[in-house]
């Protein structure tokens, strides 16, 4: 086959792709390489920029900066109709004035392919997507799944080097979606071309892809095979987004040891660190007798989920989620054990354990004699020594920040990530001037706009451990 020479070669490369709408940055310098013949999935919550990447490749959006390369050639100035890609649109975008055959034949007719050849190709393609005999049907008379397959056929019949699929199964019901996932996978094999698939459904991504690109707020979090992103998530966000996970705040005192949930576990990671995140998948937790477990706790709940039981076990302050084929009685005390290779240690998403703020001492004092300091355009009384004009570094614990309505807070911003850490939510708020780390019991959605407030008395000057003169 002439195609084998291309196997594994780079088809599309995105270089520092940036895009913003109305001042909001949708893509923040995205670099991505897509290899020929692969099934690549862009996965992320809505608003993460995955569809924008697709539209930049298709040519419907022009990046503000950065380049889309197709087989090494920059494509930024090439209009959509001259790009060697075809798209399956989210809501199919079939032409309502044409029947199934004419919809599928559309691209070939535009390219002036002889009508005899068109007939052959269209009929072959319709057979491939299981729509034989539907040629004369008006598209409005088709079910969602059938329209979907017409849309795929209409794009694929042009034999694009790259097929872009923008959440194509989003409008289908669960059963049909599962069938179509398998079908798409088969079509990918038969069509022998590259698929770039956009979805927010992690299960879909895991089922279908050769490579998954996990995205969050315009940046790529991790690129890897489905096994990689599931077993070796790059950070707590990826771990939380893909599959179910127990995520803990942890510390690594030395190589192959990690402390979380009140106990020391053996792991395979090296490089000790004061602060890490740990992820343990629910199916990797072994339920044993209380004396054999690394930790022990009381079973709070057990739900039958078809193939397994989902149990919640209270260990100290943490709640562990466990998937097991055996169930335990609610109230029973059980031991929990995790094999070292199933404990995955990740770098923290926030660089420090506390919020650190550089504030300027204004020289004013309040009635109790506290210095008034200012940062981010707000002033706070703080018991910090120093004279006017001096800068002090203040810390604020993530526990001391309270979430509130946008207009009631001292500062406000967008929640960039919200991760359940077994006994609290760990949130990162992107405010106008800085990022805040917040620990909260409040369940907020990532992407929500919220305000934060705190007691200024909680702003502390770190103990001078030799940093000051």
């Amino acid at each position, binding site marked *: 086959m002439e195609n084998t020479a291309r196997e594994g070669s780079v088809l599309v490369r995105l270089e520092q792709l940036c895009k913003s709408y109305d001042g909001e940055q949708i893509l923040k310098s995205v670099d991505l390489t897509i290899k020929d013949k692969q099934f690549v999935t862009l996965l992320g919550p809505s608003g993460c920029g995955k569809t924008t990447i697709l539209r930049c490749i298709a040519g419907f959006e022009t990046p503000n900066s950065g380049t889309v390369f197709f087989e090494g050639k920059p494509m930024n100035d090439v209009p959509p*109709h*001259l790009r060697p890609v*075809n798209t399956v*649109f989210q809501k199919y*975008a079939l*032409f*309502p004035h044409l029947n199934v055959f004419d919809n599928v034949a559309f691209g070939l007719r*535009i390219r002036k392919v002889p009508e005899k050849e068109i007939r052959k190709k269209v009929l072959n393609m319709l057979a491939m997507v299981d729509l034989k005999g539907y040629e004369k049907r*008006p598209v409005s008379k088709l079910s969602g799944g059938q329209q979907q397959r017409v849309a795929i056929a209409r794009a694929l019949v*042009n034999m694009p080097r790259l097929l872009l699929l923008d959440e194509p199964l989003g409008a289908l019901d669960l059963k049909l979606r599962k069938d179509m996932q398998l079908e798409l996978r088969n079509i990918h094999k038969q069509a022998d071309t590259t698929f770039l698939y956009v979805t927010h459904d992690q299960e879909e991504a895991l089922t279908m892809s050769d490579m998954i690109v996990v995205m969050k707020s315009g940046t790529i979090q991790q690129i890897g095979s489905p096994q990689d992103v599931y077993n070796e998530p790059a950070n707590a966000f990826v771990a939380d987004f893909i599959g179910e996970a127990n995520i803990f705040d942890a510390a690594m005192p030395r190589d192959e040891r990690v402390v979380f949930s009140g106990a020391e576990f053996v792991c395979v990671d090296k490089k000790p660190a004061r602060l890490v995140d740990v992820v343990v998948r629910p199916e990797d937790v072994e339920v044993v007798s209380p004396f054999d477990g690394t930790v022990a706790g009381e079973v709070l709940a057990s739900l039958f989920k078809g193939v397994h039981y989902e149990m919640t076990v209270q260990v100290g302050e943490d709640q562990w989620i466990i998937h097991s084929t055996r169930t335990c009685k609610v109230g029973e005390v059980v031991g929990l054990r995790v094999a070292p290779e199933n404990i995955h240690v990740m770098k923290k998403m926030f660089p420090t354990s506390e919020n650190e703020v550089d504030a300027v001492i204004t020289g004013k004092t309040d009635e109790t004699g506290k210095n008034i300091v200012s940062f981010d355009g707000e002033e706070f009384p703080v018991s910090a020594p120093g004279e006017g004009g001096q800068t002090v570094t203040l810390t604020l614990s993530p526990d001391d920040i309270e979430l509130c309505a946008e207009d009631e807070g001292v500062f406000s911003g967008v929640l960039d990530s919200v991760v359940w850490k077994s006994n609290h939510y760990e949130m990162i708020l992107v405010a106008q001037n800085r990022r805040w780390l917040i620990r909260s019991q409040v369940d907020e959605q990532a992407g929500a706009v919220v305000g934060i407030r705190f007691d200024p008395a909680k702003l502390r000057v770190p103990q001078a451990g030799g940093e000051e003169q």
Partner: protein
Amino acid sequence: MKSKKPLIPYLIWMAIFVVIPLGMIIVNAFTDKSGAFTLENLDRIFFKDPTLRYNFLNSLRVALISTALCLVLAYPIALIMARQKPSTQRLLHFLIMLPMWMNFVLRICSWLLVLQPDGILDVFLRNVGILSPGESNPVYMTETAVILGIVYNYLPFMILPIYTTVAKIPQSLYEAGADLGCSRWKVLCKIVFPLSVPGVISGLTMVFVPAMSSFVISMKLGGFALMGDIIDNYYKGTGGDPHLGAAVSIVLMFFIILSIALMNRFDKDDDVVLA
């Protein structure tokens, strides 16, 4: 079975104000002054009266030209309008409707002020040097002026139905066209135009029908009579001939129905649904 009772008031209304008058016109068309049956009126229209025949064909021609001009002007306007942001669309919609709030005769008379010798147009053209002093524009009291008047008057009826259909075409269809290899022009020809056909048909009907039977415009701006004026004259005063007027009306109606039927043949895909 759904009850047909709610229809009854409308049926009575239609009977009194549509069916009965239409019947009277038809009766009038086939009778003479004494009330006896005759085909004389039709005979005059089709064979005996060359002036009437000429006027009829002239009306048809003027109406066709005006309708075609309206389409050519309205289509791009509708397209551009549909691609604006919603607030701009509403503003444009308002501006297009605005002249309609003014009385029809008044609007035509204001064109008279513009076109007449030494009128606004002449003054303007003389000032910019296109006409020499004392010269007048060649449009006043011509067929061109009448067509101008008709196009001016009925353009909104062409723009709005086309705009309505074009505005319903989702952005994704434009993108799908481009994605499948269409240049902008081809997207227009292969996707946008076919989908706007229902709007075009209703625009054509809404312009052609009143243009064919328009009156006042031709007398005021062109100084000659079109079918509307002629029917008007037959019904007016003692010198009129309501029986001939009725016959002319019936023939005109027949041709209008025929042309609508022809147009609707192009619009047979009525099951096109834009999601």
